[in-house]
């Protein structure tokens, strides 16, 4: 593998981690969705580059799915939901920006330490990719727990899935079954979530999960 291949792949995967950090401190839903679209865009570029480097044309399909569904369809649809629900105001965060960013840095360091240590036998491209992918997954998880709003938790979950796609494409020659399944699962997840959001709206006029969380442990 030539050096430039490696560098570009590295750059794109690293950018994905960076965009994950951008997501962490967004406090408006619209901005968050735009950043998510950017996240998906970087993912699409990264997957396409992997397809080119690995000479694996089926990965272009995955890149296309990321581009069309994740970067365009889902953000647009969520935009509409937000408008319809009238919740484009600020996002309530459980944790402030500072601690969240620090925790994020810690998680990235953790994933580097874990993944680089265990994968020294794998080829360098795959191992750095995996380390970045784990960072994106962990940052997605962090976002899910630092947000109260249902829509931003969903965005956190979707960026987590982006990390999984990055990992799957980094693993050279992984069968297509899995990539398609990931794309499908995002779609299904989105449908499910859509239904949920509408039901929640219908019943309680809120998508703030904290209001949903009225009952802790045993009710009544």
């Amino acid at each position, binding site marked *: 593998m030539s050096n430039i291949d490696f560098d570009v792949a590295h750059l794109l995967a690293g950018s994905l981690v960076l965009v994950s950090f951008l997501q962490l401190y967004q406090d408006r839903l619209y901005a968050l969705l735009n950043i998510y679209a950017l996240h998906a865009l970087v993912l699409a570029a990264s997957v396409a580059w992997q397809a080119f480097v690995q000479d694996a044309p089926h990965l272009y399909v995955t890149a296309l799915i990321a581009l069309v569904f994740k970067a365009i369809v889902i953000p647009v649809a969520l935009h509409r939901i937000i408008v319809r629900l009238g919740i484009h105001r600020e996002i309530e965060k459980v944790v402030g920006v500072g601690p969240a960013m620090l925790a994020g840095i810690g998680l990235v360091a953790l994933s580097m330490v*874990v*993944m680089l*240590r*265990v*994968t020294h*036998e*794998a080829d360098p491209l*795959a191992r750095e990719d*995996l380390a970045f*992918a*784990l960072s994106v*997954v962990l940052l997605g*998880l962090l976002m*899910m727990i630092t947000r109260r709003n*249902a829509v931003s*938790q969903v965005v956190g*979950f979707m960026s*987590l*899935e982006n990390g*999984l796609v990055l*990992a*799957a494409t980094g*693993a*050279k*020659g*992984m*069968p297509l*079954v*899995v990539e398609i*399944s*990931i794309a499908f*699962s995002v779609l*299904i*997840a989105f449908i*499910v*979530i859509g*239904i*949920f959001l509408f*039901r*929640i709206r219908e*019943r*309680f006029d809120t998508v703030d*999960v904290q209001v*949903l*969380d*009225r*009952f802790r*442990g*045993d*009710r*009544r």
Partner: protein
Amino acid sequence: MTIAGVTFNPIAGVLLIPAIAAALLALLPAYRVTARLNVLATALTFTCAVSLLFSRPQPNAYLLLDDLNGTFIVLTTFVGFTTSIFSASYISHELDVGRLTPPFVRFYHAMYQVLMFAMNLALVANNIGLMWVAIELATLTTVLMVGIYRTHEALEAAWKYFILGSVGIALALFGTILVYMAARPVVGEGLDAMVWSVLVARASAFDPALLDVAFVFLLLGYGTKVGLAPLHAWLPDAHAEGPTPISAVLSGLLLNVALYALLRFKMLMAANAGALAPGPLMVTLGLLSLVFAAFMLYRRRDIKRLFAYSSIEHMGIITFAFGMGGPLANFAGLLHMTMHSLTKSAIFFAVGHVAQVKGTQRIADMGGLTETHPVLGWGLILGVVAIAGLPPLGIFMSEFLVVSSTFARAPLLALILVFGILVGLAALFLRLNGIAFGEPKGPTGKVEASYVPMFAHLTIVLVAGVYMPPALVAWFQNVAGLLG
């Protein structure tokens, strides 16, 4: 197998019957027909599953059948079948009182079959990617079913289940990718590196460090679906707020399917000498779940939540037994899993009717059930006696085996185990006393229950506790040997 000149593949039957039934049930509007069709489809699936024990198709890159998943499939389809009988009477009552409307019942029946399809697919999958997809499908289906009543609590439960379940599933996928990464240098690129039977044959050459990390992700991911503490938060809500047949299927089956996935990866780890031993991790999580859930049983006020925590307790015992490993502990774990599935679903059948009669799930509003509804009341008592692990029922025997095999190897762990079981037992009887005896409380209307599934399960559990046929013992011993 060839019947009447037509070649018949039972694996296809186990997968196609639920798939076709799901499509049919989604199209047919009349609920009396669809409830029967649901029963018929699950009965056919069960027949196919039993025939799998006799004719075994060759494994291919996607599907595999061995003694281990054969056992799981027969259990899954059997409980699926009996639950569909219970479900028919349960749903007709829900329609009568207007908690569900016909369109939702249609949706419910279709989803029931999709769930059966997904669980069977997860069990027969030879490809670890396919297994993951199937478990994800099962999760999404149950999320929809849990939220079907659309009450505030049901939506909260479904949302919580969805978020926690998805995170678990995502972690499991990351683990699956790591297993592929570990296999790729040895097996080569492509499909083969995700085929479980190939992986296990060549696991000894995999990079142990990578496998270790993969297993931790898989344990956390699928462990969330098993309901192991501290990853169990979704489980009580999902059980309490969904329709009771779904609680029965969740407790009795879906938790087992997730555990099955974990066992497959445990076998993979065991095949690699350099890899971390998965046993101690599973033992720790199992004991933690057991003791935690046993104490949580005391403060439950909702009857379905009570038995949901009891499921966490028992999944803890089962995970503990498999974590200990060895022929005897594996045997005990398998037996306990079977007995728990049968007993817990029987209890939920009883609880479903009790909650319908009383119009509430609050334990404080129930009382004197043995006076007002003797059959239901005594059925519930028998179920709780069984689940608490009293002789002569089947769970006593399996718990006894778990404890005695542990005493021989790690007495200290056995003490914790016995402590947890006893704490749980006391809590269950404390609650049962209020429900079954004393002043009758709440409505005492007649119940249109189908007792057959409940007593069928309890009879099997009773018989198994008194006398296990040697053929069955040999079968379980054989499967326990496979698990290593």
